[in-house]
């Protein structure tokens, strides 16, 4: 395998690998494109590479893997509409139609706290905390009361970025996984000898609650729990 890649891929820096991947993609050689993009990602993370990699997986009808790539891209660039669009498209494309009732307030909150990326929110939180500290110390030394409104504003902004950061951080945790095989059998216990209770399809997003004997205890969006072979699931962030 390795030899094959070496022959195939002449480029060695990420930009060349990326551009080569794009040309493979355009000539519909999606498998080669994936190899290029993955090599490029090993040299450095970039949202465009993730995005194109997701597209290549999608073209090969690997919905689960595509969703993973889009999610990784979104963590870096949450305001990129192409990524969000394709993520939603891939989610709607999968076999298991899981209807989650979305209420408009929840959606608005989710959008509000996904506007800045994890890195941005972390930095901004620190900066606003520093500004708050400066304002606090000015208040301590000079007792300038007018600064208090500014202080409240900076503290609230800090809080906003802190929450954004925490939201991302929880989503980044390794409990999130996506089914990457077209059809997966889920059991009531960690092993094939247990009762088969579910059939999950490619692209289903699950939470991994436990691991035992090469099986993951997964929780589906509806709250149903079942044991699935760990090889059929790929964690989103690992």
């Amino acid at each position, binding site marked *: 395998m390795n030899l094959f890649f070496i022959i195939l891929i002449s480029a060695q820096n990420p*930009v060349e690998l990326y551009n080569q991947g794009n040309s493979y993609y355009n000539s519909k050689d999606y498998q080669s494109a994936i190899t290029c993009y993955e090599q490029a990602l090993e040299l450095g993370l970039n949202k465009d590479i993730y*995005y194109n990699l997701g597209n290549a997986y*999608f073209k090969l009808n690997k919905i689960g893997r595509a969703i993973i790539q889009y999610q990784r891209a979104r963590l870096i660039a949450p305001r990129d509409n192409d990524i969000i669009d394709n993520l939603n498209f891939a989610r709607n494309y999968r076999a298991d139609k899981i209807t989650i009732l979305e209420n408009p307030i929840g959606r608005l909150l989710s959008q509000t706290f996904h506007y800045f990326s994890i*890195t941005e929110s*972390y930095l901004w939180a620190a900066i606003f905390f520093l500004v708050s500290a400066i304002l606090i110390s000015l208040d301590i030394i000079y007792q300038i009361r007018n600064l208090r409104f500014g202080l409240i504003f900076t503290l609230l902004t800090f809080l906003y970025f802190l929450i954004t950061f925490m939201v991302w951080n929880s989503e980044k945790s390794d409990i999130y996984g996506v089914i990457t095989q077209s059809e997966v059998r889920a059991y009531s216990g960690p092993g094939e000898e247990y009762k088969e209770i579910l059939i999950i399809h490619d692209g289903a997003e699950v939470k991994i609650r436990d691991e035992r004997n090469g099986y993951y205890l997964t929780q589906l969006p509806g709250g149903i729990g079942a044991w699935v072979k760990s090889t059929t699931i790929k964690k989103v962030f690992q």
Partner: protein
Amino acid sequence: MKRIGNFLKKVNRQWFYGIADGIVKRHRNPVIMSLFFLLFLSSLFSAELNFSASVDRTIVGLGETFTLNVSVSGENTGNIPSPKLPDLLDFNIYGRSTSQSTNISIINGKMVQQGTVNFIYTLSPKIIGKLTIGPCKMDYGGKTYETQTIEIEVVKGVTQAPPAQTQPPVAPPSAGDGNLLVLAVPSRTEAFWGEQINVSFYLYTRYSITNVEFVKLPSFSGFWVETLNEPRQLNYQTKVYNGKQYYVALIKSVALFPVTSGVLKVEPMELNVDIERPPRDFFDFFGINQRLKIESKPITINVSVLPVENKPEDFSGGVGKFGITAALDRDSAVGGAPINLIIRVSGTGNIRLIEKPKIPTIPNLKILEPETKEDIQTTGNTIKGTKEFRFPVIAQADGEYYIPEIKIAYFDPLKKKYETIQTTGLKFTASGTSAIAVVTEQGGIKVLGTDIRHIKSDARSLSVQKNDTPKWALILYVISFLIIGISLIYQRHQSRLLVDHAYARRIRSGRFFQKRMKQVEEFLKKDDKKNFYSSLNKAILGYIGDRYNLSIGVLTKEQLKDELSNRGASKELLDQLFQVIEDCDHASYAPQLVGCAEPGEVLKKVKELITNL
């Protein structure tokens, strides 16, 4: 009735006198009183009287009696004098009677009193031929009233059957004996489609009736029926029919509107009538109730079709006489809310059968099916009413709209032709219609399929983007806490400087010492030994005083030394320091003494000692 009338009259007068009394009492001025009296009189006599005379028939047989009725009616008939009869030379006067009635009604909130007095004379002609009853006269309230002359034709023989009410039929009653019948009387037998025909059912009887019951009401098939009158209590009047006198009462009257054409039949009406059977003999005193079943004869009505020629397209089905109005319940529609177009057709005729008017299509206006409401009234023998069509109208684009004149046609059976009536045009404005999404069906985008968005294009350079948190940002938090800590400490120091005198002296001691030492160095430069030593001495003592918050002036050197050693200064250091102070003391008083060391060295030593202190 009469009693009530009199009572009211009385009340009226009392009320009147009461007011008059009040006015009189209040105004004892004779002029006003007399004026008022005149007013009072005029009110009593100003009312016009109606004075008339009539006879019950104008053709009388010789020797027969007839009645002359002289009737006086007016507002005040309380003390009407008897009328003066003309010379009735050709008649015998058999009797005279009076009847009086008062009718009180309230018209427009005003009580109107109408009294009638009838003077009834029973007369009998003496000769055959045309006779004249001259005008009757009456003087009342300063006026003379006259009646018209009446002509009577006197013929030979008997003209009239004896009065029925006194002689009921003696034969045993039966349904077909002609003494009890029900008659259906149509107002016409030829009509147009939709034209009103009134049919009245009368009960004719020569018996005295105790109860009437409907057995079968006619079905009136082929007609739309409106009941005009259905009296609860039968109101009898006398009437001659087929040479006999009957008591006649209206049972029911209906208005019929043919809805089909051709020969239509009104089915007979069946009645059960309970009559009081006349007594058979003298001992059959009370008589017995008997039930008779009677029915009316069927009527046929010829209904002709409405003329086909000149039949307008917008003929609404109305036959009669109608008017049309149109209105909008609002002038402006906001946010796509419907506005109501109200079209009212009102008039006399078959109002219920009128169909909804046709409304022309107006671009961007959606006119929905109307809600209809009918309000039918019967006044006398005619059917009047209003039919209301309420069309909800929805504007689908902003702008000003014009609803054109709406026409309907009806058939006027009197003129035997079609008439067209129309409304006035109406205007309204619509705004905020964009709030409702209007789906345009033409020229829209056709969705054939969906796909993911295309890949990002080639790049000349790719920045390495992190998806984790930069650790160096933690430094910002550390700096933040440091800033706050420092400012807290600084603030505490500042406030202590204000409050704690000893602290403030100690903090400033170094600065003051440096200042003094500068002075000392200046003296050294000038080689002014005396001042050098004295200022050096001052600087050292000043520093000690500031540093330990002591008042140097009041303490001796020994006390000072003890105090300092108590505060933890080392003995050796103190000894050296005080040695220097002593030397300086000596030197400042006797600078020429050579026992001292070089001033430069002394200065160096002092600095060293102070630093170590």
